[in-house]
């Protein structure tokens, strides 16, 4: 449909607020409570099991923390790119993204437990580690605990600032309907993306790469971005379909929107594979010990099976699954693909982090589940609590009508 036809239909398709809120008595109103209970149970399990095995607890917590953090960062990227590119189709799902990145301040709080276990997680933080190690001594101006903490504070400060700015702006527009908000947020989206790219790259170095302090890879930041974006789109597909099922946005999110989410999921799954394989191929080919050490840990013992599972499950299977058109347009099939990729994103992070703790092989732990439930519970509880208090779409975004009427060519 041409842009102009849409523009002239704008008044006809305006959305009534009650079409885009969770009505009283809807089962989704109970989610915050259920999730909060889960979070408490998870936290209790973490406390009990973690007391016996603190090292495992910190690693498990790190994986789950990174998982939800990356989803929130992926959401922030998604929304910023949508503003910067003036994208029209995705307005109807933007509020879902906004709700998810609004969790970034919460993620700062969930980061705090890790500070108790820095010495368990990062070998370079152990006092005296650098004394007999020329390489660590060289890196000490960057890899030292005070600077690490300052950086972490900066990352969370910047992310929370951008997140709140965009969340508030969008919510405010629901009330005022001021199109100037969109213009203003669009203007700062470019610089915000740059800041986000830099901080996210450094954060991935700090929190994941420095687990193996002597290893380095210039593509690592891009790899983290690719994974987080796939993770967020996967989550978006699941949430969008779940909302339709729950008769929340069933008149708003159409098969056309699902189709586009599916295309994004497909494209970024391939992008993730491209980045992951580039890193692997270059290190495999050059065969330098200082680089291959990272892959060696992941290609030996039972980690080898995880690596193969990751390649098959994060790329090959979803690639062929999501290739077709029907799969992307049907809620059930798209959400199945999304849920699978979300799980694979967790596996990806697990595979990046855990071989540091268990170089001998895959050692799943109850704490992995406990940490996931604890952090996930907090995340879902807070996000669903926000959803209850707000419209589920940016009601008065100037491009909402275009998004509602969106059709794939």
């Amino acid at each position, binding site marked *: 449909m041409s842009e102009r036809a849409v*523009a002239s239909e704008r008044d006809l398709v305006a959305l009534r607020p009650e079409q885009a809120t969770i009505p009283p008595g809807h089962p989704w109103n109970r989610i915050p409570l259920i999730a909060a209970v889960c979070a408490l149970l998870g936290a209790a399990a973490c406390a009990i099991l973690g007391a016996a095995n603190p090292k495992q607890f910190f690693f498990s917590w790190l994986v789950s923390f990174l998982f939800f953090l990356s989803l929130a960062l992926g959401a922030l990227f998604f929304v910023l790119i949508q503003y910067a590119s003036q994208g029209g189709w995705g307005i109807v799902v933007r509020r879902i993204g906004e709700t998810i990145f609004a969790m970034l301040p919460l993620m700062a709080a969930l980061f705090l437990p890790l500070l108790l276990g820095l010495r368990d997680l990062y070998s370079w933080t152990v006092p005296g580690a650098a004394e007999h190690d020329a390489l660590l001594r060289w890196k000490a101006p960057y890899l030292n605990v005070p600077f690490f903490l300052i950086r972490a504070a900066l990352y969370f400060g910047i992310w929370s600032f951008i997140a709140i700015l965009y969340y508030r702006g969008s919510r405010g527009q629901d009330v005022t309907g001021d199109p100037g908000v969109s213009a203003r947020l669009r203007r700062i989206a470019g610089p915000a993306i740059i800041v986000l790219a830099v901080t996210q790259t450094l954060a991935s170095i700090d929190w994941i790469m420095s687990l193996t302090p002597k290893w380095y890879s210039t593509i690592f930041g*891009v790899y983290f971005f690719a994974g987080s974006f796939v993770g967020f789109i996967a989550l978006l597909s699941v949430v969008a379909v779940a909302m339709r099922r729950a008769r929340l946005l069933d008149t708003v999110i159409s098969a056309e929107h699902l189709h586009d989410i599916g295309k994004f999921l497909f494209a970024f799954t391939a992008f993730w594979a491209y980045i992951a394989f580039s890193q692997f191929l270059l290190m495999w080919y050059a065969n330098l010990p200082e680089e291959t050490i990272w892959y060696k840990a992941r290609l030996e013992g039972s980690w080898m099976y995880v690596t193969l599972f990751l390649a098959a499950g994060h790329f090959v299977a979803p690639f062929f699954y999501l290739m077709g058109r029907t799969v992307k347009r049907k809620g059930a099939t798209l959400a199945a693909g999304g849920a699978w990729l979300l799980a694979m994103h967790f596996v990806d992070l697990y595979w990046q982090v855990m071989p540091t703790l268990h170089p001998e092989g895959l050692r799943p732990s109850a704490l992995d589940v406990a940490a996931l439930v604890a952090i996930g519970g907090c995340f879902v509880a807070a996000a669903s609590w926000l959803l209850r208090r707000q419209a589920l779409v940016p009601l008065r975004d100037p491009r909402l009508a275009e998004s509602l009427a969106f059709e794939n060519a």
Partner: protein
Amino acid sequence: MAQTEADLLDTPVAGRPTLILRSPDFHAITEVVAEAVERRTPIGWWLFFIPSLALLGLLGVAVSWLFWEGIGVWGLNVPVGWAWDITNFVFWVGIGHAGTLISAILFLFRQKWRTSINRSAEAMTIFAVMCAMTFPGIHVGRVWVAYWMFPIPNQMDMWPNFRSPLLWDVFAVSVYGTVSALFWYVGLIPDLAMMRDRAKTRTRKLAYGIFALGWRGSVRQWHHYETAYLILAALATPLVLSVHSIVSMDFAVSILPGWHTTVFPPYFVAGAIFSGFAMVLTLMVICRTAFRLEHIITLRHFDYMAKIMLVTGTMVGFAYATEFFTSWYSGNPYEIFTFLNRARGPYAWAYWTMITCNVISPQIFWFKKARTSIPILFVLSIVINIGMWFERFVIIVTSLHRDFLPSSWGYFTPTIWDISCLLGSFGLFFTMFCLFVRFLPMVATAEVKTVLPQADPHWQPGPEREIRDHRAARPAGGPEPAPEGAS
């Protein structure tokens, strides 16, 4: 004209801006595009064509001398075993990437503004790939064994080494050239049919008719055609990523500091799109003026292109910074030395040229004034391409010229034949491009027509029509009514 056109760019947050100005009808688009091909050859065309042809001749001389005398006529020698030849190769492959981005990736993202420029951008891709393929072809020295690069056993019954990135390159670039040509040709078919149907002479009718394949615009044909076009776009997108990634692997799989770094694949792709857009911009500024296409290739198109250059230029700058930081972070003395040497060593002039042209200069595109000023765009498009050529030069030559042992250090200086080959490749490129704009419709008319409002089968002539007429009747320089979408 330029002033009022710039006014139009005050983007409404809602609605979509008009892409084609002066609200032409379908026939007017046919006319303006076909007329550029059908009219008598203008003098201006010869003014471009003859110098281009002369430069192509220079390439012929340089290459003949190279074959006769050997690679020694170039300035490269141990330790700088690759210099301008591979720099030019990477430069030209990169130029091509913008064409594919415009024709394929922007198509997938439903960016309709691509329709005005995609034809010439795709042509540019093909000619750039031709220039690129020249260099690996001639740099082997003994061209008569160039067939060793093909996947066939040679006279010793040996196969090429498929595990080598140089062979990946042969596959990647030749597949890229082939698929780009197919994509371009498929897009041309409806317009070739248009030229056939308008032809006044039998020769023209035959020449265009043969290649139009008997296209008759049938919806049953369009149906498969559009599917094929979409699929080609979907295939070209990963292909274009793979091509420059594989080109980057020529360097990155080695263990040479400065070459071996994992970010090379995506970083090369970003740089390729960056330089390619600059080249598209250079060509479009010339074409739009020369062929009076101001209402089809508008400032809005330039505005979008400048934004993409800003994005990719910043990505490239980010990659430079990542490399620099990681070289320090690695703690590897060779890595650290290589990067410090780039910034402070004998080739520091090249390095800082690269930084100035590629990272600093595009930052001016944060300002809309710059994005919509033809002189600034034109100058910057050339500056950026100089910078991107230097980027490849810096990567290749500075990494090689300081080998691991100081006894193997050297300094590369180009000879007259290096320079002739580079200039000559521009001759090849511009000669082809001149021929293209002379004989083929340089705007995809069938696609541009779909952007017009009346192309929508649900479009109704109504009040909007009056607004458009009002605009057409408005005296130049007068106040502009708000674009329709904003109301």
